[in-house]
């Protein structure tokens, strides 16, 4: 501190320091208060047994995970194979978060693709965007595979591989 610093400057700077520390601390507190609650985070896991949901090939079913819809489609033999498919035994599945990657509306299945009512986007049976504003394919949720049981919420090797295939595809 230079010799020119007088008492009022010192008081001003001391207050500024205290206010800055307190201000930053309260911003952290306020930010944290808006974070999702631990109970909300803990409820973020869903288990689906593919052998017990009576999937009809070519007709997707919708499940809820973290308040978001999950599309599970068992592909028919006519549908093209895709690297991003989930393969269990001889069956191929499309598993994706059922929210349009544009702004999050739920697209509806129509014959051979998902069509979004909000802004007209469309996704094929692989979950790839084929029309409209969606910037990328339907998102693959993180899940693990144990036999025919999928557990959503945990990152698994299968879901990782599917995400990777989708980026390349």
């Amino acid at each position, binding site marked *: 501190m230079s010799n020119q610093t007088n008492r009022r400057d010192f008081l001003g700077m001391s207050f500024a320091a205290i206010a800055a520390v307190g201000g930053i601390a309260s911003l952290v507190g306020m930010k944290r208060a808006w*974070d999702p609650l631990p109970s909300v985070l803990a409820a973020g896991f869903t288990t689906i047994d593919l052998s017990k949901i009576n999937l009809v090939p070519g007709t997707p079913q919708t499940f809820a995970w973290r308040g978001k819809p999950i599309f599970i489609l068992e592909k028919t033999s006519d549908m093209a194979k895709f690297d991003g498919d989930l393969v269990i035994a001889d069956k191929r599945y499309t598993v994706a978060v059922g929210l349009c990657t544009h702004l999050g*509306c739920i697209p509806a299945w129509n014959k051979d693709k998902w069509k*979004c009512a909000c802004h007209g986007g469309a996704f094929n049976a692989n979950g790839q965007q084929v029309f409209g504003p969606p910037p990328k394919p339907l998102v693959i949720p993180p899940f693990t595979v144990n036999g025919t049981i999928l557990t959503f919420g945990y990152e698994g090797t299968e879901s990782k591989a599917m995400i990777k295939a989708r980026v390349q595809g």
Partner: protein
Amino acid sequence: MAEITESFFSADGLEKRLNGKKFWKVMMTEYWIPKDINFLWAMGVVLATTFALLIISGIFLLMYYKPDTALAFDSVNYTIMQEVAYGWLFRHMHGVAASVVFLIIYIHMFTGIYYGSYKKGREMIWISGMLLFVAFSAEGFSGYMLPWGQMSYWAAAVITNLFAGGSLEAYGLVEWIRGGFAVGDATLTRFFMLHVFLLPLIIIKLIVIHFYTLRIPHINNQSSEDIDYDAEAEKYLAGNKKESKVVPFWPVFLSKDFAVLGLFLLFYFYLVFFNYNFAMDPVNFDPANPMKTPAHIYPEWYFLWSYETLRGPFFDILGMRAGDIGLIIFALAQGIFLIFPFLDRDPDILPAHKRPKFFIWFWVLIIDLVVLSIYGKLPPTGANAWVGFYATTVFLLLWISLPFITKSDAKARGAL
């Protein structure tokens, strides 16, 4: 300080302590308004009144509304609408006022644009007004969520998703805004807080600032004449009321304002009692369902034009994703009006009919906004998508051309 000896409990003593007469003079009897104005100059008082109607009706709704995803829908559609005496009236007053307030805001805004009431000293009036528009938009959006119907839910889902920047897997900003993985109870409660406390507080502060910014520079007039307020006020106070170009805010200007306000209130209460349905979307009478998107999502009429710019570009252009282009134009649409005073390169304040090219620009903008609004409500398929695309392109070109058009007008007049 002049010590005051008169009793606190006498009219004279109270007046000496509060200086009410001086304050009244500054704000009312010696706040000068030009004579050369029309009914469009009454919109400020109409807006202030509508805001008061929103607060009063809102207070009565607040006493029965429950900000909880399990209770919200019934507290509105059963308790308030069917049990509370006149609950339906307060809800319809609130819903209709929320819609009508935007109609008046738009009239107020475009009056300002038409007469050039945003430059050469009036920039702060314009900017504080546009901040009010943003605050009212946030207030309208947060309020729309509260009845927790299908439109409430999906409007909340789509708009909060804008903060994901097109990415749904990112854990971060969207989840933080929502307080969960999806729009849910935490989202409803925090938007309830914003709607009934923080945003109204901000709006009230902005209204005070808006009044403050226009009190000293004074309002514009129909011919955009630069009035010497001190000289004209002197004439008026000396008794030359006919010669003077100004009148006091109270009682002269306000008496005319109240006439317009009376007509407005007749129109407003006609809507409240006989035609409230336009503000009550039928889809919103289905309870919120996160697993089912309504067949067609659209915002309230006053957001349609900017919503349409969001979905206007539906195909990739020059390697840019369609969704990203829409997002950029949407963001631009929200902010561009704020910098209007700086895009207008004409140095003179003049009404649009004395600026030939700007006059055309103004009406093309109005028509384009109407087209965007109409097509914002229609499903984005086939020819509709193309109309939306071209209207969005026109919207973009209008803003790019504004500085050149205004400059060219000024050159033709010899002002530059």
